[in-house]
């Protein structure tokens, strides 16, 4: 059984007990425990069920590489699945539940899958779920959905908060082991700005656990001194519980800082995502021990040798009373010695090497540990817990020599440097045959903006496994008490001649249940590329991303392919190193801060008066309609239109773009930008203009006014303001940089209100302050003055077809001006109207709308806007494009009005089918509706449509399709439905 020891446990504070709940059971641990160590201290070795076969699984590792011990953590609005027990620290009140089982961890129905394991081999999904085809939708997919996925999905909104933090440094050191500490110290002494990030709460890494002496000092003293020196440096920042998640182009690095995951007090941000820009990155990320592949290597109690040692030294936890150590290298002997010294029993060290270990073997034997050379584990016995191991020859096929009773197996298949950060941006690897590991290839580093290497690797991550070599790699020459080590002997299968029976219970990938036999089967079936094999077998595709399994897997694959490991190569290392929370990625961007919402100065009035909001031009909010009590939205829209047509309406038009264009060449510039002539616009006048892109297609429209000799103000659509300003600056900076023109986007300087309707003038006269008569301000003219005490620019322009004034006042006075208009207009029946009423009124007038009548493929000629295309100008943006033959084709769809014969409203997006089919067997079409509304003015449906040869087919009846499959007949008419001669607007 696993239990808490009386002594040891440098990480825990025995004076601070904490209580947590596991599957409803209350368990105790100490502050400093990880969930895994606390569970083990409570003899809870079994921690989960595997994904595919639902096999009982215990914890294997002691760090970020753990594949098995994943839990549903927290409850309600703090619930999160797949939390790793080896990296989660316990705190008072922590609640966890095991996952991937039904009804319970101890008894799981899904474990029946094991019986079918023969029929669930690699590629099972691809083979099984192909035929018959219709089964996919109704049988296979529901079945797969039901059984797929680990853990549960959180159902409530996350109660925690998150944030980002931008940080800049010369040197980023990833990893707070001795290599990282030494590298940070070196860079710090050179005066560089240094950031050192350590993913756990603790510094020093393995050197401290292994009790190494550095220059006569204990490793923990060396670490404490180095940390103190670093903390004393102004130019060095040291953070723990902060993992380097990924290295990206040009020195961009993400750090994942966990602030409250280990605390009962959850106030403040839970995670902080550090968005770091580093001049250079030093990866001191250490190495990860590899499992060995033998029968039953996934039974709870089979663990990495280093992890068994960690639990004893760091947390004072023994993983078993009797531990058999199995290894192919010297390091695992340390585990045996540590256990023995802690008073635990080690019946044997099974060393696959016939020559055995270096001097450390004698040390072990001196403690009375039996060392068995050239031996292997044939089988691990036990179901939910190891009960013993059968020993055989490594060189043989698995004939059992003897059986040893034990409750823990500590295995070591050698060490793999953590090369993720080196590889994220393309650093290449070399296979080191002597050390049996992939090491960073210094000849092929990841390259930065200057074409030079920007990531370097030190210490174990660079393949140095002894303390002296690690520190030498980081620039420090030291002496240590570590004995020389004998060479590792690569062992990819134990025993080497294991038959299929043994191989099919020798696990490579614990979380995804991939066995040695699966990879061999993939190779047999023709999978040669490691990337393909990975996807076929799902090796390394679980949440641990194959930290334990990848090297063993590709060694197995290369053997099966009769190739070499470097030939087969590795899969791609992609960030993040371990999963990071979606909350951290989101940061503060949630709720009101999810996205900026742009508000006009009158926003609050609208909001308080029944505004139904509509997003316009991206982030603006405009009122769709002001809905009163008892009204439907449709009622409100119709009321607003009728009132505007009969009395007077107010529209908040503040969102329209307003761009100042000034300079001696401004007229010439605007002549290039607009299809019509703007240079000859008279001061005080307004002109409607069209803008096309270089492809000739309509891009934006709006009214341009001339303020003085060399200054124009261009109105744009709501969505087009920023784009049009950028467009202008692009041409001025990049093409016509010798033209003297300045622009300024003054969209938000003004609150703008359209006062429209037969009584509009009376409202302004009531406000008083300036002459707004027809003679003073004619149609398409503007004047500056004051209205009711407000500084105002009054334009006589109309988008509704009514007598209309658009008045601009300083934005700060927008709300007050709106109130003043409502007050002055009260006796004339003034009512605000929203964007839908505006749209319908403009459609009644046959005015086009960018985005309705245009879709990025429409030229002005399609919309019969020839009058707006200047013939006097040699050039304008889009002119050359419009000369292309297909732009002049008579077959282009052109704008017309359409009226249904029965007065109904044509459906949005309806097409006009034509006889016959196209080559794809689809019905031919000859037109489509672009705007379609119920007109309360005309009391019938009206629409605009683009129809082939439309203007030549006036009076013809065509058919539009409907969603129910029927057709509606409509007559082609003039698109101007209301006040064709413009008598109402020009009064």
């Amino acid at each position, binding site marked *: 059984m696993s239990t808490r020891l009386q002594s040891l446990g440098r990480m825990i504070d025995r004076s601070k007990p904490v209580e947590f709940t596991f599957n409803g059971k209350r368990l105790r641990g100490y502050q400093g425990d990880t969930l895994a160590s606390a569970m083990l201290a409570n003899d809870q070795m079994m921690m989960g069920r595997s994904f595919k076969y639902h096999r009982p699984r215990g914890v294997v590792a002691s760090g970020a590489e753990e594949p098995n011990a994943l839990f549903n953590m927290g409850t309600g609005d703090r619930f999160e699945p797949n939390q790793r027990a080896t990296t989660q620290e316990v705190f008072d009140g922590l609640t966890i539940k095991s996952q991937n089982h039904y009804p319970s961890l101890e008894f799981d129905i899904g474990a029946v899958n094991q019986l079918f394991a023969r029929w669930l081999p690699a590629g099972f999904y691809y083979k099984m779920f192909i035929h018959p085809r219709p089964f996919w939708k109704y049988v296979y997919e529901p079945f797969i959905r039901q059984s797929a996925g680990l853990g549960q999905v959180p159902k409530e909104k996350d109660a925690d908060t998150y944030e980002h933090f931008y940080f800049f440094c010369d040197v980023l050191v990833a990893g707070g082991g001795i290599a990282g500490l030494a590298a940070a110290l070196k860079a710090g002494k050179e005066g560089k700005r240094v950031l050192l990030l350590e993913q756990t709460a603790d510094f020093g890494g393995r050197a401290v656990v292994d009790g190494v002496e550095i220059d006569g000092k204990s490793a923990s003293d060396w670490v404490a001194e180095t940390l103190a020196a670093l903390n004393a440096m102004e130019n060095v920042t040291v953070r723990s519980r902060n993992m380097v998640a990924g290295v990206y182009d040009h020195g961009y690095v993400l750090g994942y800082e966990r602030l409250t995951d280990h605390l009962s007090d959850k106030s403040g941000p839970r995670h902080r995502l550090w968005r770091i*820009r580093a001049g250079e990155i030093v990866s001191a990320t250490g190495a990860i021990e590899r499992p060995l592949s033998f029968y039953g290597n996934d039974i709870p109690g089979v663990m990495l040798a280093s992890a068994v040692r960690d639990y004893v030294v760091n947390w004072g936890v023994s993983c078993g009373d009797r531990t058999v150590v199995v290894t192919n290298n010297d390091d695992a002997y340390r585990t045996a010695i540590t256990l023995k010294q802690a008073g635990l029993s080690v019946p044997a060290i099974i060393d696959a090497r016939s020559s055995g270990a270096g001097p450390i073997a004698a040390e072990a034997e001196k403690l009375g540990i039996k060392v068995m050379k050239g031996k292997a584990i044939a089988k691990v016995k036990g179901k939910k817990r190891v009960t013993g191991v059968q020993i055989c020859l490594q060189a043989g096929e698995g004939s059992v020599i003897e059986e040893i009773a034990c409750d823990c197996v500590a295995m070591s298949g050698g060490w793999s440097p953590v090369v993720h950060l080196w590889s994220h941006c393309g650093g290449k690897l070399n296979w080191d045959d002597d050390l049996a590991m992939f090491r960073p290839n210094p000849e092929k580093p990841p390259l*930065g903006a*200057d*074409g030079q290497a920007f990531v370097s690797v030190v210490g174990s991550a660079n393949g140095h496994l002894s303390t002296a070599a690690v520190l030498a790699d980081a620039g420090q020459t030291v002496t240590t008490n570590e004995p020389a080590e004998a060479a590792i002997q690569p062992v990819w299968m134990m025993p080497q001649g294991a038959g299929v029976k043994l191989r099919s219970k020798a696990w490579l990938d614990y979380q995804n249940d991939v066995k040695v036999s699966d990879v061999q089967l993939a190779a047999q079936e023709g999978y040669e590329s490691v990337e393909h094999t990975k996807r076929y077998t799902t090796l390394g595709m679980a949440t641990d991303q194959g930290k334990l399994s990848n090297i063993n897997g590709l060694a197995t694959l290369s053997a099966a392919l009769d190739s070499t490991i470097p030939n087969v190569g590795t899969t791609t290392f992609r960030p993040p190193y371990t999963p990071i929370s979606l909350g951290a990625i989101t940061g503060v961007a949630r709720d009101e801060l999810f996205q900026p919402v742009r508000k006009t100065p009158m926003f609050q009035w609208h909001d308080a008066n029944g505004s139904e909001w509509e997003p316009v031009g991206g982030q603006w909010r405009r009122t769709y309609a002001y809905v009163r009590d008892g009204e439907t939205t449709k009622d409100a829209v119709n009321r607003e239109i009728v009132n505007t047509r009969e009395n007077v309406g107010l529209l908040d038009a503040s969102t329209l773009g307003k761009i100042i264009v000034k300079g001696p060449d401004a007229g010439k510039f605007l002549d290039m930008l607009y299809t019509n002539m703007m240079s000859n616009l008279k001061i005080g006048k307004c002109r409607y203009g069209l803008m096309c892109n270089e492809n000739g297609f309509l891009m934006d429209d709006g009214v341009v006014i001339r303020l003085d000799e060399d200054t124009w103000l261009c109105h744009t659509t709501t969505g087009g303001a920023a784009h049009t300003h*950028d467009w202008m*600056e*692009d041409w001025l900076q*990049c093409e016509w940089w010798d033209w003297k023109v300045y622009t300024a986007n003054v969209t938000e300087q003004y609150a703008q209100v359209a006062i429209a309707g037969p009584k509009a003038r009376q409202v302004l006269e009531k406000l008083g302050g300036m002459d707004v008569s027809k003679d003073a301000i004619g149609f398409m003219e503007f004047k500056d003055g004051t209205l009711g005490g407000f500084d105002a620019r009054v334009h006589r322009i109309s988008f509704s077809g009514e007598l209309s004034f658009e008045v601009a006042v300083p934005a700060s006075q927008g709300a007050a001006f709106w109130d003043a208009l409502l007050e002055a207009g009260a006796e004339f029946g003034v009512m605000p109207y929203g964007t839908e009423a505006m749209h319908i009124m403009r459609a009644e007038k046959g005015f086009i709308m960018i985005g309705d009548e245009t879709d990025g493929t429409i030229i002005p000629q399609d919309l019969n806007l020839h009058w707006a295309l200047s013939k006097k100008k040699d050039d304008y943006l889009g002119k050359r494009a419009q000369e*292309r033959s297909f732009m002049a084709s008579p077959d282009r769809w052109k704008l017309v009005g359409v009226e249904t014969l029965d007065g109904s409203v044509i459906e949005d997006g309806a097409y006009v089918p034509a006889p016959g089919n196209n080559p794809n067997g689809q019905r031919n079409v000859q037109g489509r509706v672009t705007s379609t509304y119920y007109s309360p003015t005309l009391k019938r449906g009206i629409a605009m449509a683009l129809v082939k040869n439309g203007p030549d087919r006036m009076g013809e009846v065509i058919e539009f399709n409907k969603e129910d499959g029927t057709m509606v007949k409509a007559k082609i008419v003039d698109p101007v439905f209301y006040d064709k001669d413009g008598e109402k607007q020009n009064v």
Partner: protein
Amino acid sequence: MLILHCPYCGVYAEETELHAGGEAHLKRATIGDSDEAFEEYLFMRENKKGVHLERWRHANGCGKWFLCARDTATLEVYGTYPAQTTEPPADIVAAITAKHPGWSWKEKA
């Protein structure tokens, strides 16, 4: 995520401050030019795996457009320069050529 030096305000701006604008040094074809020349201007773009000359705007910054010589495969940046020029400056061409002997950009060397 790229960092580019804005030659106007001197900021080493990260990509989120920038707006990419496609190929640099396009020659505008217009009225009087042939269909082929116009097609070339409007649609034909370099698509190199290698050193590319491109337009960037310091949009969330000083607002200025600048040009950049960047390797699309390695992301090495050979330099940025003002937009008011019809060809890359000699020092940048030299830096590119030193690494890629014989490098050329359309009709410009």
